[in-house]
């Protein structure tokens, strides 16, 4: 099948070496006097990131390597509903997060919060609600880390490494993993922030070259879209009664497209790694400024999605080393077919490094959740900042080992399915986390009950549903909504149920005058800025007096 492409591999390896070096050096970058022995320093980069570093960090964090592989793959295989929805998703994402980023940053800054569950803990004084948020965050993040490793694997496979030999298939991944683990452990959030700048520079160059050169080479966009339309409207290979995919969503698919985009946009900033990156900025307004400049990445993502259609026109054949077609390989294969080896090598390097940035942030965020909201909350309430940082470093290693085992020993499809499920789960934490920033009306037990209902409903529906039974359990994120009957994103339906439960139970519990916990935050906490005088990093468990 493939031969090993040495030029590509050497460039890939060289980029990895540069990244490993940078990542470990990053420990000294903008370092405070206290070293890295606190979650503030190790887990949030000392909150030293200004607008541009935050832009690269959030961009590298949200638009993961896996996205860059999976979105064009979905466009190539089934078209707009499963692929291009990522564009409206990232369009509405920024107006959505604009609402709460400022308040979230301020209250976290005021109280020294590091995780989303910290914020909930402070507002409702409920360990259990906070535990629910923390566990959901960890569960949702683990398969996401695994997917980043899947992204690296896809690139390596096209470069010719893989197949049946264990050494060829797994060794490069283990090396990538070791690099990731080493720099995350030693440098914390500073490492992905620094690497993100390099990686995104590469990604922008690669995509812009591809999006200008390839359509020109293939006879223009008209022909590309016509080829895509022809493929999508042709009968499906597995079920000839249905078309292959969706070129432009019709009325019956419109709601699915809308709810997927909206639900995903609402879910994205509930992920602990998004919160971590957002909290690491140096002042209240950096996040909102970024809402206006991060759409540059959405543009990139949209163009990249269209490369899936370009691949249709180009007749790209994404066949894995096992000889079976695998749409995940379509973008690496497109580069391999149409560009010189050195450029393909740079592209592959950009994607592979692109996987290391979010994987690092995700493992940091998951580790912080464990340290703050499970370990400290339930086992060691008197943990010092240095102790917390040590626990987080070790847990971040464990989460990555878990992700690695997932990729090495389970079918890749599992990682993808669990990531879909993770998106659905994490969306259920929105009412507790976000509504609390604006009102204390919701009752903590009502929020917990709503969360539980959303989680259970979403998981059951996702488990039971299979599209014409070509996919296994958890294979689809779409299902019919109850009552309305239209097809929608399961997470969105679960969220609506979650909300109804939370509102109804809040009314009941408030009427019954059940205590709603203690709130250690003050109204003014939601508006502090970095230069508001008198701020210290207080003990997170104590009210500020």
């Amino acid at each position, binding site marked *: 099948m493939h031969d090993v492409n040495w030029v590509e591999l050497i460039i890939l390896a060289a980029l990895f070496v540069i990244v490993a070096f940078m990542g470990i050096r990053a420990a000294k970058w903008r370092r405070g006097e206290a070293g890295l022995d606190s979650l503030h320093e190790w887990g949030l980069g000392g909150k030293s990131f*200004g607008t541009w570093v935050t832009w690269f960090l959030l961009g590298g964090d949200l638009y993961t390597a896996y996205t860059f592989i999976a979105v064009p793959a979905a466009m190539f295989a089934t078209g707009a509903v499963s692929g*291009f929805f990522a*564009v*409206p998703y*990232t*369009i*509405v994402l*920024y*107006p*959505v997060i*604009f609402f709460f980023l*400022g308040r979230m940053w301020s209250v976290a800054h005021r109280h020294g919060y590091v995780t989303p569950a910290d914020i909930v803990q402070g507002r409702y004084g409920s360990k259990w609600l906070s535990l629910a948020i923390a566990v959901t965050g960890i569960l949702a993040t683990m398969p996401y880390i695994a997917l980043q490793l899947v992204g690296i694997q896809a690139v390596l496979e096209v470069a010719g490494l893989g197949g049946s030999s264990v050494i060829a298939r797994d060794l490069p991944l283990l090396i990538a993993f070791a690099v990731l683990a080493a720099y995350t452990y030693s440098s914390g959030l500073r490492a992905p922030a620094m690497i993100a700048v390099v990686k995104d520079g590469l990604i922008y160059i690669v995509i812009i070259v591809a999006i200008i050169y390839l*359509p020109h080479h293939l006879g*223009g*966009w*008209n*022909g590309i*879209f016509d080829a895509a*339309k022809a493929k999508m409207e042709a009968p499906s290979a597995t079920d000839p009664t249905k078309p292959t995919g969706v*070129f*432009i*969503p019709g*009325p019956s698919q*419109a*709601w699915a497209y*809308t709810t997927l*985009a*909206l639900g995903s*946009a609402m879910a994205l900033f509930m992920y602990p790694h998004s919160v971590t990156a957002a909290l690491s900025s*140096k002042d209240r*307004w*950096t996040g*909102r*400024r970024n*809402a*206006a*400049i991060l*759409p*540059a990445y*959405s*543009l990139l993502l*949209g163009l990249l999605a269209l490369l899936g259609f370009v691949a249709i026109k180009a007749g790209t054949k994404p066949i894995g080393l096992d000889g079976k077609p695998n749409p995940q390989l379509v973008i690496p294969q497109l580069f391999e077919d149409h560009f010189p080896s050195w450029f393909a090598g740079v592209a592959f390097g950009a994607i592979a490094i692109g996987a290391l940035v979010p994987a690092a942030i995700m493992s940091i965020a998951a580790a912080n959740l464990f340290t703050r909201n499970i370990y400290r909350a339930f086992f060691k309430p008197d943990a010092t900042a240095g102790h917390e940082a040590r626990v987080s470093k070790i847990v971040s290693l464990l989460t990555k080992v878990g992700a690695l085992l997932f990729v090495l020993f389970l079918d890749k499809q599992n990682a993808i399915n669990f990531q879909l499920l993770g998106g659905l789960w994490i969306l259920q934490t929105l009412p507790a986390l976000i509504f609390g920033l604006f009102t*204390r009306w919701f009752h903590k037990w009502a929020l917990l009950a709503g969360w539980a209902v959303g989680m259970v409903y979403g998981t059951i529906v996702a488990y039971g549903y299979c599209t014409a039974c070509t996919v296994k359990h958890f294979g689809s994120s779409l299902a019919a909504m109850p009552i309305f009957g239209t097809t929608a994103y399961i997470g969105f339906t679960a969220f609506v149920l979650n909300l109804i439960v939370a509102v109804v139970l809040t009314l009941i519990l408030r009427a019954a005058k059940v205590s*709603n916990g*203690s*709130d250690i935050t*003050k*109204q*003014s906490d*939601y*508006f*502090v800025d970095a*230069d508001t*005088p*008198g*701020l210290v990093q*207080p003990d997170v468990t104590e*009210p*500020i*007096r």
Partner: protein
Amino acid sequence: MAIDEEPEPDRPEPAYRGEDDPRWRVTPTKIVVTIILVAAIVLPLLTWTYSRDSPRLFGFPFFYWYQFLWVFLAAGACYLCYVLLRREARAYQAGHGTTLTPPTGPPPGDAGGDELAHQPGHDQDDDQRKAE
């Protein structure tokens, strides 16, 4: 390190302590910002308003180029909201000073008014601040 000069003493219960920070109130600016943001969320999601092939632009079907257009429109909307809220926040700071007073360190600048503008090392947005 405690901050003692908080206007409201901390009471453990009830949860809502009768605080009334003016920044929590609904203002005309906030209403405008909300309308802009909601529009930027709702309009790009009305799939049926753009699920068509024609007219094509540079070979792009309407469905595709219209959504690309919204990438720019939503970014612009966020920037506009940023400017509006920032202006409101600055007006508030100029009028009220900050609500927190430092427990230690040098006292705030003249009359506790616009301390931010006098603080060195505040590199973000200096250009905008100086303009005022």
